[in-house]
């Protein structure tokens, strides 16, 4: 395929494809958007409060208290979905919470459930992508992970470093300084510098804001970059300050306002996360993290012909697809395998079916023979009985005949004796 030089042409009139963005816009608005956000941090750092503040809803309220109110024995991963609508655009927001992270005495491998969860979401997406019927592809991949750092003022804890090192290749990690109203402005500056230094030192790749051609945007992006990691304060309670109603936290010495850029970086986070970079986060998840996962998974499958995808949660770098077979050939191979498997299954099933049929026939025959036999036996029984009865009757007839004969004899005798007597009487007279 040669790359032909594409000539640029100027149009003479208005054609109308400038309305393409509008069409895209209308279609996406109809379809709606999805966004999945994960929050990770020790308990008590204000994660639930921040989520409530970001989206101005009470995701965790009194009726459904967040996981913060009880310390868990093991790390869990909980998902909550909420559908928000604004200006005709609807957003299906999924918040993934991780209660129990970093709370136990021994926190080794507390990141494992989280890594497993992220991988399982990638796997779901991969499976739904490889299906034959792809009409609905729900995207539940984690688009962004907000990591909350405790405001110690010194630096990152070993747990923070470990976690970020393991997750920066799987998801967009955005570190935040939680409960930033603990720090004075100088402490905050120093803390941020220290954290960024440590992040560089350990080669952690946090989410990078993309460079654009627009000068104006670049300046904004640079301003955000200077303030990383963002120091946030969350609150949903409204307080009156100078006859203005603001969201904030009321202290005896003053009110820390959430939306005041001087007090904390909450507005920057909100703008970045929702208003400007949400789409970019999704793109990076799709193009970088998901592709990493996919190439690693598929390469592992075809390398040995055996599914050796046990290497989860390990620190690997991006695998180059050029090393393995081209994806198309891989798919062909897979398809062939699949087809042969199907054929084998079919044959097996036929065999099984035949065997079953034979068995059934045999059984039927058997039962028929059995019936026949019984029939014969019964007949014989009957005949035997019949004969017996005949025999009895004969015997009985014989007896009767005998008896009759006997009777006649007796009779004769009697008659004879009577005549004799008569004769005797007669004779005596003579």
């Amino acid at each position: 395929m040669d790359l032909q030089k594409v000539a640029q042409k100027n149009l003479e009139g208005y054609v109308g494809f400038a309305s393409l963005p509008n069409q895209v816009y209308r279609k996406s608005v109809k379809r709606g958007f999805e966004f999945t956000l994960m929050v990770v941090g020790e308990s008590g750092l204000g994660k639930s409060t921040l989520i409530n503040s970001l989206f101005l809803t009470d995701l965790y309220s009194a009726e459904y208290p967040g996981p913060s109110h009880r310390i868990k024995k093991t790390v869990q991963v909980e998902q909550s979905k909420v559908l928000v609508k604004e200006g005709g655009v609807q957003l299906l927001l999924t918040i993934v919470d991780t209660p129990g992270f970093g709370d136990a005495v021994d926190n080794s491998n507390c990141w494992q459930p989280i890594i497993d969860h992220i991988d399982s979401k990638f796997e779901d997406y991969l499976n739904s992508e490889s299906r034959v019927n792809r009409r609905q592809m729900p995207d539940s991949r984690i688009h962004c992970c907000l990591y909350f750092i405790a405001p110690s003022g010194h630096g990152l804890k070993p747990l923070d470093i470990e976690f970020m090192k393991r997750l920066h290749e799987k998801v967009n990690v955005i570190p935040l300084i939680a409960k930033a109203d603990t720090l004075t402005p100088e402490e905050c500056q120093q803390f941020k510098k220290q954290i960024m230094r440590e992040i560089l030192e350990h080669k952690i790749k946090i989410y990078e804001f993309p460079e654009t051609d627009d000068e104006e945007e670049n300046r904004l992006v640079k301003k955000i970059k200077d303030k990383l990691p963002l120091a946030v304060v969350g609150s949903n309670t409204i307080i009156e300050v100078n006859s203005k109603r603001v969201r904030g936290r009321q202290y005896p010495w003053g009110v820390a306002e959430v939306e005041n850029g001087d007090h904390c970086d909450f507005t920057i986070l909100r703008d970045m996360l929702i208003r400007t970079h949400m789409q970019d986060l999704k793109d990076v998840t799709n193009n970088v993290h998901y592709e990493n996962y996919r190439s690693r998974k598929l390469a592992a499958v075809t390398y040995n012909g055996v599914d050796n995808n046990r290497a989860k949660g390990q620190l690997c770098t991006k695998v180059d697809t050029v090393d393995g077979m081209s994806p198309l050939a891989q798919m062909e191979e897979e398809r062939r395998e699949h087809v042969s498997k199907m054929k084998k299954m079919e044959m097996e099933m036929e065999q099984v079916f035949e065997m079953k049929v034979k068995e059934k026939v045999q059984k039927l025959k058997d039962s028929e023979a059995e019936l026949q036999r019984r029939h014969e036996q019964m007949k014989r029984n009957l005949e035997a009985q019949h004969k017996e009865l005949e025999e009895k009757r004969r015997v009985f007839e014989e007896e009767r005949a005998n008896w009759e004969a006997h009777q006649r004899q007796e009779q004769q005798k009697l008659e004879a004796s009577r005549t004799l007597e008569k004769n005797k009487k007669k004779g005596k007279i003579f």
Partner: protein
Amino acid sequence: MSESAKVHHPGPPVKAEKTHGSDFSYVGIDAILEQMRRKAMKQGFEFNIMIVGQSGLGKSTLMNTLFKSKVSRKSVQPSPEERIPKTIEIKSVSHDVEEKGVRMKLTVIDTPGFGDQINNENCWQPIMKFINDQYEAYLQEEININRKKRIPDSRVHCCIYFIPPTGHCLRPLDVEFMRRLSKVVNIVPVIAKADTLTLEERDDFKQTIREELRANGIDVYPQKEFDEDAEDRIINDKIREMIPFAVVGSDQEYQVNGKRILGRKTKWGTIEVENIAHCEFAYLRDLLIRTHMQNIKDITGSIHYETYRVRRLNESNGHFTSLPAVEPKTNGLPAEQPAALQANGVAAQHGALSHEM
């Protein structure tokens, strides 16, 4: 010299001191307080305080604030960046401080690395070992045949445990640690960096902590069972209602209403450390220094140390002429009381015994 003369002052009420005018019934026994005070001033006091908590909770700052000078380990060994040590270390720094003629040897024992690792199993063991080692050293000195007039007291009198201000409940690590250590040392739990919590959150958190402490049977200072009389009980009950203290530390001064006070300045206000409307640092300081310091030392000496001693001596049993009656030691100045221990020099027979609880 004049002291001994005063001590042998005879009893008859007629020989009253002229200084009290026409007070015939005055004997002068209360003058012993003055003598004790003078002696104490000459000898000075010792106080050993241990601070335990995760890194970044403001422990060193609070120490500096408590004693109004740089007494933490960071003042002694300045390091530009804080590195979390791989294992728990015990760093002990001593200072001699003086106020109005009263001298005190203050030792601050810091425990960097506690609770900072990923796996914090048994992170309390080095600390327990340290505390028991101090008791052991004191015991060795005590049962020596030729012992010093005044045994240097390096026992940990008080352990301040810093609870991170999560606002929800105690973490398993906190419960484990306090449960084990409340048996060997006086624990004073404090909520660190309390400027994170609003007043309602603070009250809720304290309530939760108190309930959890009760549920787990953790006896923090002031312990209920060591209240000596009704008066003590009233005072201590008031304190027990406020435990744990929500503290904020600072060693920087700011100008507020024309006064220079210690505080933290943020964009939305200045937190005054000594203002009880802002935080409870003043109560903690009063408890530790102004009102209950002696009581803390007493309890350490008479109860925790004695428990250790009884256990220890029972372990190597049968080597003493008599098991002495356990008498409480006052003021941490053992030289005043006659030795109740009749043990001979059996120091050589004490091998390394296990210190685990």
